[in-house]
């Protein structure tokens, strides 16, 4: 779909969409338009181009809010998922958690979710509990119930993880959590770009995602929080833009959210570019994107499942992420081999260093799809993977 918006696809097969996505022309043009025609700061000037910048910045926020089913004042611009997660964990949870409180995660989470929590184990003495993954490495409600105790305060997981790619039952999880006074923080880095995510329907307390994984620019991301929770989130950065007035340490008055959490000159071009990206994917339709990826994934899995030296890590998942290994060949060498044919795949442990405890494999080759991928591209990939001797030969030089 929409391949003509990506000229780079003329001679590239791009299968690394979980790492970052390609940028359509309209997003690049939108950013260029800002820098060329109204490169002004926001919140400040009384002149036209400053109004224009303000207006576009606000429109971007509105597009994102309506995309997620949130209110405008629940959408905070950050530099990305990592930034959002750190702000939520250190600005909100650090202030309400105490020694012995339990936080539930899984071993399949990304470093950007695991490490801020590990840090609170060291700083506050909170306790981390892991949901046991089932035979397909999925999260099940039964296994979640096994680790919930009276001390559980937070469930903090991705809606879709970057290696296994299962869609977690977030709506059911928030229901169970809220009945017990537990808060739910969702890493939406891999879900928001690929499926319809409605924060009110899911009833999540906090959600984070990155612009660059949804056709937007790098350096911009979103923190969503329910209004009443965001109001309790302590700003991690203080400075211009976010204060209403101050004259002494005793008297600092901050503005309302979301501006309160966006100190300093924000990434204006990034936010405007992300707004355009969101309008772009929305015009394709999130349900269409999701359906297309699932079709391609099934097509790919059907073609490789009978190749005996290929081991799939996640044939049961329901997203466009396929991770596998090839017997006796180091994943990186496969990556190098495919690169010769202008095919981009991810190899390695994908920022998840404790998952190997669970699945016994610490590295893999990952193909992650998006709407612009095609069956023909998958045919090319499968052709190259179906001759092991050729891989062994060509991976060397």
């Amino acid at each position: 779909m929409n391949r003509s918006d990506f000229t780079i696809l003329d001679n590239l097969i791009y299968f690394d969409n979980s790492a970052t996505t390609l940028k359509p022309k309209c997003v690049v043009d939108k950013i260029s338009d800002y820098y060329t025609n109204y490169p002004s700061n926001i919140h400040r000037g009384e002149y036209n181009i400053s109004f224009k910048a303000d207006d576009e910045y606000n429109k971007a926020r509105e597009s994102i809010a309506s995309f997620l089913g949130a209110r405008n004042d629940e959408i905070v611009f950050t530099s990305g998922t990592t930034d959002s997660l750190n702000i939520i964990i250190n600005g909100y949870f650090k202030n309400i958690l105490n020694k012995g409180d339990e936080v539930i995660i899984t071993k399949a989470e990304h470093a950007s979710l695991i490490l801020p929590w590990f840090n609170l184990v060291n700083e506050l003495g909170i306790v981390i509990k892991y949901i046991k993954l089932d035979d397909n490495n999925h999260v099940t409600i039964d296994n979640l119930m096994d680790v919930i105790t009276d001390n559980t305060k937070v469930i903090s997981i991705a809606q879709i993880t970057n290696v296994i790619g299962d869609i977690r039952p977030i709506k059911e999880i928030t229901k169970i959590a809220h009945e017990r006074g537990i808060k739910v923080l969702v890493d939406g880095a891999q879900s928001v770009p690929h499926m319809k995510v409605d924060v009110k329907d899911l009833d999540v307390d906090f959600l984070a995602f990155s612009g660059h994984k949804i056709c937007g620019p790098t350096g911009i991301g979103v923190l969503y929080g329910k209004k009443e929770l965001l109001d309790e989130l302590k700003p991690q950065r203080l400075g211009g833009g976010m204060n209403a007035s101050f004259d002494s340490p005793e008297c600092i008055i901050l503005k309302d959210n979301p501006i309160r959490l966006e100190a300093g000159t924000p990434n204006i071009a990034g936010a405007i570019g992300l707004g355009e990206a969101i309008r772009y994917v929305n015009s394709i339709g999130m349900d269409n994107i999701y359906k297309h990826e699932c079709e391609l994934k099934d097509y790919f899995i059907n073609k490789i499942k009978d190749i005996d030296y290929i081991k799939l890590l996640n044939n049961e998942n329901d997203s466009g992420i396929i991770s596998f290994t090839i017997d006796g060949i180091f994943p990186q060498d496969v990556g190098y081999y495919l690169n010769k044919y202008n095919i981009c795949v991810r190899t390695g442990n994908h920022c998840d260093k404790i998952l190997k405890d669970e699945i016994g494999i610490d590295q893999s080759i990952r193909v992650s799809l998006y709407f612009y991928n095609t069956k023909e591209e998958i045919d090319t990939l499968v052709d190259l993977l179906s001759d092991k001797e050729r891989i062994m030969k060509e991976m060397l030089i």
Partner: protein
Amino acid sequence: MDDNTKREILFDNYTNPYNKIDEELDGYLKVNSNNESCIDNIDIYLLIEDKTIKDIKFKGEACAISTASTSIMIKNMIGMSVEDGIKYVNNFINMINEEPYDDTNFDEALVFDETYKQASRKTCATLPYRGIIKLLEDNK
């Protein structure tokens, strides 16, 4: 050297690496070398007597190019004086970085004479060299 010869040498050293061990080794100097952006991770064990490299072994997992490069490095360096070892390492790194180098004693290491053209393979080929140079510098 033509590509087929290179391929054979790489393949042999990758599938049958010289002095690769599975267990920890006592009585040797040890250094870890890894590539941050990937999973290459090896321990190099070095035995020096009378300013001479008596033995080198390695342990760990790495890609085909890193493994082959380590195997070839070990074959070449055993028996060298520490001083010659340092020169050899520097010459190898110069070759990878497309700078002037002296290929005396290079033998199989010449399979890497065009690696500078492959950005992603440069860190693989130099993996063991970046580790061993630290031990040699500390013990010269």
